[in-house]
């Protein structure tokens, strides 16, 4: 186990249906603070399940999950929601922006849910939109943006509460190559600033280019872990 781990999974098993093979089986792993870890594996290998457990979107059947120094597998739903709001930012493959909210309101939302003051939240959102290069779109609706712009909005939204951990589920999966590269560089910049990042991806190039360590899953088990050059 690493010292100063932001993520620590210990003997985690997740079974969706009794009698069915587990989605994750007795998995143990750590992710250190400031690290970029890529999770790879074929469909059905348990990548999304792992991401959901780390994000507190789901609970393990057995085992413990500790994130940012806090054991989350035994938190209540409210506790998990508070945890997500304060400690985790999530970037989805298909952005999952709320169509009926403007770009600014999408970014503000997690801060508002976490109880941040109006002024602080707006200042932080403005700063992030500028950093993502989409400040001029702040009053637009997501449907009017390109895929790359939407993913930038999603990243800004994920960062608005300055989370300890950024989780990205196929962040370039819905983007063209050039845009995907740009988003990759953006994530790399964030990591350079100390942001811990877990990438779930099918794309070996993305993992190789940006991740310090790649975790490979096969049938819910850790196949191998490797450290990039």
């Amino acid at each position, binding site marked *: 186990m690493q010292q100063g781990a932001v993520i620590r999974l210990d003997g985690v098993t997740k079974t969706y249906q009794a009698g069915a093979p587990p989605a994750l089986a007795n998995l143990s792993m750590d992710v250190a603070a400031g690290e970029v870890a890529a999770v790879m594996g074929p469909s059905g290998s348990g990548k999304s399940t792992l991401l959901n457990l780390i994000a507190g979107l789901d609970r393990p059947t057995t085992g413990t999950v500790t994130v940012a120094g806090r054991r989350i597998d035994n938190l209540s739903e409210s506790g998990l929601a508070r945890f*997500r709001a304060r400690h985790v930012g999530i970037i989805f493959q298909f952005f999952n922006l*709320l169509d009926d909210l403007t770009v600014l309101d999408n970014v503000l939302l997690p801060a508002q849910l976490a109880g941040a003051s109006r002024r602080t939240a707006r200042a932080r959102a403005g700063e992030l939109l500028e950093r993502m290069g989409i400040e001029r779109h702040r009053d637009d609706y997501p449907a009017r943006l390109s895929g790359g712009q939407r993913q930038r909005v999603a990243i800004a939204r994920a960062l608005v509460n300055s989370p300890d951990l950024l989780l990205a589920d196929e962040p370039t999966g819905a983007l063209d190559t050039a845009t995907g590269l740009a988003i990759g560089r953006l994530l790399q910049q964030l990591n350079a600033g100390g942001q811990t990042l877990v990438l779930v991806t099918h794309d070996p190039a993305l993992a190789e280019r940006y991740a310090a360590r790649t975790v490979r899953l096969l049938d819910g088990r850790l196949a191998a872990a490797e450290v990039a050059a």
Partner: protein
Amino acid sequence: MSWPGRNWLGPVRTATGGILRHKVQAVAIGLVVLVSTASATLGLALLAASNTPFQHAFGAQDGAHVTVTVNAARAGAAELAATRHLGGVTAAAGPFFSSTVSAQFDDQPYGQFTLAGRGSPAGPVDDVVLNAGHWPDGPGQVVLDGSPGGGGPGLGSTLTVTGVPGTPVLTVVGFGDSITNTADGWVTPGEIARLRAPGAPQSAQVLYRFTHAASYGEVRADVAEVSRALPPGAVTGAASWLAAEHQATGNGAIMEPFVVAFALIGLAMAVLIVGNVVSGAVVAGYQRIGVLKSVGLTPAQVVVAYLSRVGWPALAGCLAGVVAGNVLAIPVLHNSADAYGVGSQQVPWWASVVAPAGMLALVLLAGFGPALRAGRLSAAEAIAAGRAPRTGRGYAAHRFAARLRLPRPAGLGLAAAFARPARTAVALAAIVFGATAVIFAFGLSSSLSRAEASQTHSATIPVRVEPFGPGTGPGQAPSAAQDAAVAATLRAQPGTRHEVAVYGNGVKVPGIAGNVNAQAFGGDAAWTGYGIIAGRWYDAPGEVDVNTAFLDSSGLAVGDTATVNTGTTQVTVRVAGEVFDPDSQPRMYGSTRTLPGIATPANLYEYDVGLRPGVSAGAYVQAVNGALGSRNPWQATAQRHDGKFYSIASGLVGLLAIMIAVAAGLGVLNTVLMTTRDRVHDLGVFKALGMRPGQVLTMVVCWIAGPAVVAAAIAAPAAVALNTATVRAMAGTAHTGIPASFTQVFPPSRLALLSLAAVAIAVAGALLPASWAARARPAVALRAE
């Protein structure tokens, strides 16, 4: 559309297997249809019950056209038996020996009863319907006319018969209804002899049905024929069924307006909710239909599959609803029968067929259009339509809500109502109907309470002193000394706040056929609390108040003068006001100075007494009766709560309002449920971003909060208008105007409070799906799309 032959229904059955996977929607459809069918069944039963209930009961119970009372000493059994064969007599029952007795209940005078000795409630004429208990099968038992409760005797109570040797005690063993009120109670035939006062003639009743008895003239002719067939003086009295019919029709018709009002609200609700459920289910099911078509279902199979998906839960709801409606109707119709003064009423068989069949047809009709559309869609179109694409609606509302200083979940919820305006409008309409019904029910209950208080004077005249039994004056009337003793006793009681002697007699007023029932008060009577419809209570000699029937009969108006012939003199009076006295007979109220000739000892029929605050009516009555002594015929009685109609009507109003509110809540539940399903992915996103379960609950409840506030603003004035119109319609059927205070039952603060019913219905309906949404795991919600 094609209808292939073999195994055509196989794929349909497979396709509709999804019902079990949409349990909540199926349960929502089933419950709404259940409530709608139950209320429709009840409504139809009530409408049928209010449709000539007397005639139906009269036919079912072989009511007596005429109850002839004979002096049994003058007519022998053979002579009475011979009258059965008179021309025009179609059936006869009796003779039943009878006696009119004075009784006490709880040591208080309880009035006079005509008791008849009958071995059985059944017979060829006047089949008495037992409401409770059993028919007397031994000495000392009595069945009373009516139903138990209302502060009077109940099963097992005892009545002490006064004025006969041994003061026998009768135990109440049952309650029954004679459609023509042939007696106030029934005992075994052998009991009558010991209930007859010494020296009183032996009376018997003979009950007849005639070929021709449709009018008072025909009834008089029938009675005359019976009288001629018996020795002179044998017939001592005859009661016509027409008088009972008149009384029953007056009672029952009053309920019709509000029953109709609730039935219309219920029907509109049912149409609205069912339509909403089915359309929502169609939209939600498009994608599935597209998939089914892509695997080979024909358009006709799609239509049938879709209709059966809503049809099966609806059918279950219809069947359960008709059972529930029948069960609910039992106590309601029991009360209704009491109010109409008929023995019993049942749910007509056709109501149990029409209500569920109509509701099922409504559901299928509402579903057929969308299902047909789905059947005609290409598979690709259906799948695309099933994704319920965003239309851009509600964006501005979200933008506005984001600027409000509201908790963010509340703002998100309030704005969401604008995303699907049609669905929101339906939910709003359901809440409007539900809230209107609730506010209307409270208002109507208040109006009825005021009418009851005004009609029975139970609050203002808690004690009345009336003569029971013979006095020592001429013709066994109370003597002047006995009258004077009453006045002195009442004045001597420290609890007396007001007391006034009341005289009554018929007077003649030109222009009005028949007598006008005049009441003359021997002192100040303004405190008696008659509701003033127009004008004011009389306060000077020469002024009178009258009821609505008087003004209608005479064509006079408040402020006009009338000539009154009191029998001893003729006076001119000015109509100072119109008072609330629901009666088809004209009535007049004035002072003894205004109506001279009425204030004679023979016309003195009661003293009305008002008590000081805190004085118990029971204790006061005991004190007065103790002071008067048992030899004085005047006895004080505490006001019996005689407003049975009002309590029945209020109960019915409450039941109907609750049913409609529940249906409205289910309508809201369904709407919120559909919206929750539409937005399940968004809910997953909200949760992933850190929205807590409590915040989800707030947001989902707020989806419906905006429409609820709008609904409250619509329902409040609607309910006020409905209440005013209904109370006026009820008053119209009771031949009376109403004081303005009867409809002014909604002071602003109360109306504002009652308007919260809209919010309560909305929140109650939204809470269940909101809590489901709050509990849903974010990972599951994110996967749901």
